[in-house]
C-alpha cells in the first residue's frame, strides 16, 4: 500500500471522526454531554491530530492540538459544559472540518484566528493542550491527563462517569498494593522504533512521526540498533536508522500506537518501565500492519491476541513480553475499495442477465418449471440484493452535514431554527447518498431563507420565536422518501402566480390549480425573492434541484399552506443499479417503463380518446383529461396507433399525470440498468438500457424526459 493510499485511509477515518463529532455534538445540544460523549469527541479530535502529524498537515495538526486541549479540560472536569462553551466547540468543529478539507486539497486553509482565540479564552492559555506537554508539566496537571486505555476498559465493562478516572490514580493504586513498587518512581513508556527499510517509498518521512512523538512529550531520544552501513554501501532510498525514546506514562499506549497507525512494516516496541504493570500495558513488540484496526483503544485492546493469518512475523519480543501484531484485533468491518465493490455489483448484474437468458432458453425447451431453475433464480436475486446492500449507506452521512448548514444560515440570516432530523439510519445506495447532498442543501437553504420568518415576524404571527425545520428520510414502497418541511410562511400562491405571469412562464388567464401554482417554483428562472441573497434567490435553484432529483430517477413535490409552512418531498429509487420495470413493445422495439412512474394501465374505450392532431391526443381517465404520448411517433418508430391495438399506461410525472401509448405489455420484472451515457451517449427521453433474457437490448424510458420531448415537439409544431 503506498503512502497516498494510506493517507486516503486517514482522510476516510477523519471523515468518520467528523461524523462522530457531529452526532456527539447533537447529543450535547440535547443536554446529553456525559463522560462517554465527551471522551468520544476528545478521541476523534485526537485521532485526527495524530494522523495530521504523521502526514505533515501542520495547520490541521496545530488547530486540532489546541481544540484537543480544551476538550481535555472538559473531560477532566476542569471545564464545565455550558451553552457558551458548546458554541465555541461547535465553531471549532466547523473550522476543524474546514482544515480537514484543506488537507485534502478541497479548499484553502481556513482562517482559524478567531476560533483559536475563543478556544484560548475558554480554556486558558493555549499551551495547556495535554498531548504535547513535556512529562514534568503534564505531571503537574495530572487530573487533566488523557486516560484512553483505562477509560476504554471501563467503558467496555460499564459506561459510567468513573470512566474518566485518570490512569495515574490506577497506577498509584497498584503501587500502593505492591510494596515492591517505588512510590516515587513515575513509570514511563520505553519505546523502540525502527522504520521499515522502504519507509521513504512514496514520500514517506519517518522524522515526521518522531516529531509527533516529541510533541507528545517524548524524551531521551537516541539512535538505536545496528546503524548505518559504510558510506560506500549507503542507499539513499533505504531507511537504516532506529530510535529508542521515552514517553510520559500519562500518554496512553493507544495514543502512542495511533502515531504509527498509517505506516506499514515498522518495528515498534512499547514497554512500560514500571512494576508491577496492568495487564493491558504489558511489554510487547508489535509489527505495524497496513490496514490497521480502528485507532479506538477499545478496539485495539484485544490486539494482544495473535497475528492475523498471513501477516509478517512479529519482531523478536522483548524479554518477558508477548509478540503481538497491531491490527490483529478481530474487527467487525473491513474497508473495501469502491472499484472492487462496483466490479462485484456489475458481475452480479451480468449473472442476473445470464440467469434470465438461461431461464428463457430452458423455457423454450419446456424446462422452465424445473426446481433447479427456481432455486437458481432465488439465489441470484438474493445474491444481487446482498451485493446491493453492501453499497447501501445510511442517510446519516448526508444528514450529519445539516446542523452545520443550519448554524451558518442562522448566522447569516439572524433567524433561529430548531432542527429535527428523522430517519438518519435509512439506507440507500451510495451513489444516491453522494448525489442527494446538493439538492438537499438547496432545499434546506431555501426553507430557512425564504420559508422561515425572522423572530419578530414569527412572534407577530403568533408562532414561536424559533423556526422549525424537519428533515426526514424513510423507505416507502421500495423508494426512499426525503422530506424537508418548515413551519414558515408557506408559499404565497398569489405572489407566485403574479411572478410567473410577469416572467411569461404562464399566460395571465391560465386556469391553474393550487398544485400547479406551487409547482411553478420549479420553473427555470423563477424566483420570488425580493432581493438576491448569497443564500438563495438566484432563481436557478429550484429548477436545478428538480433536474438533479430527476437525474437520480426521482421526483420532487411540494405541499404548502400559506402562513403555516411548506413541505418538499423527494422520492428516489433506493438503488440506481437495478430497476423494477414494465417491459413494453412499440413496433419492433422493446422498452422498459420504470414501475415507479406507473399509476395504471388500461385499454382505451371508444370515445375515451380524443385526437387533437396527428400525434396529439387526450385520454379521458375518469374525468381527468391526460395528454397521450405516442412513443412510436416521438421516437420515430412505426407503431400501432388505433385504440384497439394499443395499451395506455398512465404515468406520474413532476408536471402531473400523462399517458404513454404502447403496442403491448410483455412483462413486469426487475432489470439491471446499464448506463447509456457510459456505453454510448446520453439520449433525451432514455435513462439507460438493459439486456433482456433473450439477449435483446431494451431501452429504459425516462418518463420525464419523454414528456419534455413531446412538449418541445408540440411547441415546434405550433
Amino acid at each position: 500500500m503506498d503512502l497516498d493510499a494510506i493517507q486516503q485511509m486517514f482522510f476516510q477515518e477523519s471523515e468518520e471522526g467528523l461524523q462522530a463529532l457531529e452526532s456527539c455534538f447533537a447529543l450535547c445540544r440535547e443536554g446529553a454531554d456525559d463522560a462517554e460523549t465527551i471522551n468520544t469527541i476528545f478521541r476523534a479530535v485526537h485521532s485526527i491530530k495524530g494522523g495530521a502529524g504523521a502526514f505533515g498537515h501542520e495547520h490541521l495538526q496545530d488547530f486540532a492540538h489546541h481544540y484537543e486541549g480544551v476538550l481535555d479540560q472538559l473531560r477532566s472536569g476542569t471545564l464545565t459544559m455550558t451553552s457558551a462553551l458548546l458554541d465555541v466547540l461547535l465553531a471549532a468543529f466547523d473550522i476543524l472540518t474546514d482544515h480537514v478539507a484543506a488537507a485534502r486539497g478541497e479548499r484553502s486553509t481556513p482562517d482559524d484566528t478567531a476560533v483559536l482565540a475563543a478556544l484560548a479564552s475558554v480554556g486558558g492559555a493555549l499551551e495547556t493542550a495535554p498531548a504535547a506537554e513535556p512529562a514534568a508539566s503534564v505531571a503537574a496537571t495530572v487530573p487533566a491527563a488523557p486516560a484512553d486505555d483505562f477509560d476504554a476498559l471501563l467503558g467496555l465493562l460499564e459506561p459510567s462517569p468513573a470512566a474518566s478516572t485518570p490512569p495515574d490514580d490506577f497506577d498509584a493504586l497498584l503501587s500502593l498494593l505492591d510494596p515492591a513498587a517505588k512510590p516515587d518512581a513515575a513509570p514511563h513508556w520505553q519505546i523502540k522504533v525502527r522504520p521499515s527499510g522502504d519507509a521513504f517509498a512514496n514520500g514517506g518521512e519517518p522524522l515526521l512521526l518522531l516529531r509527533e512523538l516529541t510533541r507528545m512529550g517524548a524524551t531521551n531520544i537516541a539512535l538505536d540498533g545496528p546503524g548505518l552501513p559504510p558510506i560506500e554501501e549507503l542507499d539513499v532510498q533505504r531507511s537504516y536508522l532506529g530510535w529508542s525514546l521515552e514517553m510520559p506514562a500519562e500518554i496512553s499506549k493507544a495514543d502512542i500506537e495511533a502515531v504509527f497507525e498509517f505506516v506499514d512494516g515498522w518495528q515498534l516496541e512499547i514497554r512500560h518501565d514500571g512494576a508491577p504493570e496492568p495487564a493491558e500495558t504489558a511489554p510487547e513488540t508489535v509489527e505495524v500492519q497496513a490496514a490497521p484496526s480502528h485507532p479506538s483503544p477499545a478496539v485495539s485492546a484485544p490486539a494482544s491476541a495473535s497475528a492475523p493469518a498471513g501477516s509478517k512475523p512479529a519482531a523478536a519480543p522483548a524479554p518477558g513480553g508477548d509478540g503481538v501484531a497491531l491490527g490483529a484485533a478481530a474487527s467487525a468491518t473491513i474497508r473495501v475499495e469502491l472499484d472492487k465493490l462496483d466490479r462485484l455489483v456489475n458481475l452480479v448484474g451480468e449473472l442476473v442477465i445470464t440467469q434470465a437468458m438461461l431461464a428463457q432458453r430452458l423455457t423454450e425447451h419446456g424446462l422452465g418449471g424445473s426446481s433447479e431453475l427456481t432455486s437458481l433464480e432465488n439465489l441470484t436475486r438474493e445474491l444481487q440484493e446482498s451485493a446491493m446492500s453492501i453499497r447501501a449507506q445510511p442517510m446519516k452521512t448526508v444528514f450529519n452535514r445539516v446542523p452545520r448548514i443550519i448554524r451558518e444560515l442562522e448566522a447569516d440570516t439572524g433567524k433561529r431554527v430548531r432542527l429535527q432530523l428523522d430517519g438518519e439510519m435509512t439506507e440507500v445506495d451510495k451513489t444516491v447518498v453522494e448525489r442527494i447532498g446538493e439538492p438537499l442543501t438547496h432545499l434546506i437553504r431555501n426553507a430557512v431563507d425564504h420559508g422561515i420568518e425572522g423572530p419578530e415576524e414569527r412572534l407577530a404571527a403568533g408562532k414561536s420565536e424559533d423556526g422549525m425545520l424537519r428533515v426526514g428520510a424513510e423507505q416507502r414502497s421500495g423508494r426512499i422518501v426525503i422530506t424537508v418541511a418548515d413551519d414558515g410562511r408557506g408559499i404565497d400562491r398569489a405572489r407566485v402566480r403574479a411572478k410567473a405571469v410577469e416572467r411569461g412562464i404562464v399566460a395571465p388567464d391560465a386556469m391553474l390549480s393550487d398544485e400547479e401554482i406551487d409547482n411553478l417554483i420549479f420553473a427555470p428562472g423563477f424566483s420570488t425573492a425580493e432581493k438576491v441573497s448569497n443564500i438563495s434567490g438566484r432563481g436557478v435553484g429550484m429548477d436545478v434541484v428538480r433536474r438533479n432529483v430527476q437525474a437520480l430517477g426521482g421526483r420532487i413535490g411540494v405541499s404548502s399552506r400559506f402562513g403555516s409552512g411548506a413541505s418538499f418531498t423527494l422520492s428516489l429509487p433506493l438503488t440506481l443499479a437495478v430497476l423494477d420495470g414494465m417491459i413494453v413493445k412499440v413496433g419492433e422495439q422493446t422498452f422498459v417503463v420504470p414501475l415507479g412512474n406507473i399509476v395504471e394501465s388500461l385499454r382505451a374505450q371508444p370515445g375515451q380518446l380524443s385526437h387533437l392532431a396527428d400525434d396529439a391526443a387526450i385520454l379521458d381517465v375518469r374525468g381527468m383529461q391526460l395528454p397521450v404520448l405516442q412513443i412510436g411517433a416521438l421516437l420515430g418508430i412505426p407503431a400501432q396507433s388505433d385504440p384497439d391495438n394499443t395499451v395506455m399506461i398512465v404515468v406520474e410525472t413532476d408536471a402531473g399525470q400523462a399517458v404513454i401509448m404502447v403496442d403491448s405489455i410483455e412483462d413486469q420484472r426487475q432489470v439491471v440498468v446499464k448506463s447509456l451515457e457510459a456505453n454510448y451517449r446520453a439520449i433525451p427521453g432514455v435513462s439507460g438500457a438493459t439486456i433482456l433474457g433473450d439477449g435483446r437490448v431494451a431501452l429504459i424510458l425516462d418518463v420525464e424526459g419523454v414528456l419534455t420531448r413531446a412538449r418541445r415537439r408540440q411547441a415546434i409544431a405550433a
Partner: protein
Amino acid sequence: MPNPEQLPAALNAAAAQPLLDLLKERLADNEPIILDGSAVLQLGQACLQVLLGARAAAGSREIAFTINNPSEALSTMANMAGCGELLVAGEA
C-alpha cells in the same frame, strides 16, 4: 582549509543522492568536510543518514567533518532525532 559547502534549504529525500555524491567525492579526495548549515529549513531522514554516514567515514579516515552555523531548523531536527553530535565538529 576549503570553502564551506553550503547545504541546501531542503535536505529532503530528493537532496539525499546529490549530497551523498558530493560527500563521497570529498571523502575520496581526503579533504576536510566543512558544511554550512545556515540555510537549512528542512531535514529528512535520508539526508540525516548521509550526513551521519559521511561523519563516520570521515572519522575513520581521520578527516575533519564540521557543520558550521547550523540553522535552528537543522539543530532542532538533528537534536530531535538524537543526532546532536552531528553538529559537533569531528576533528581528525
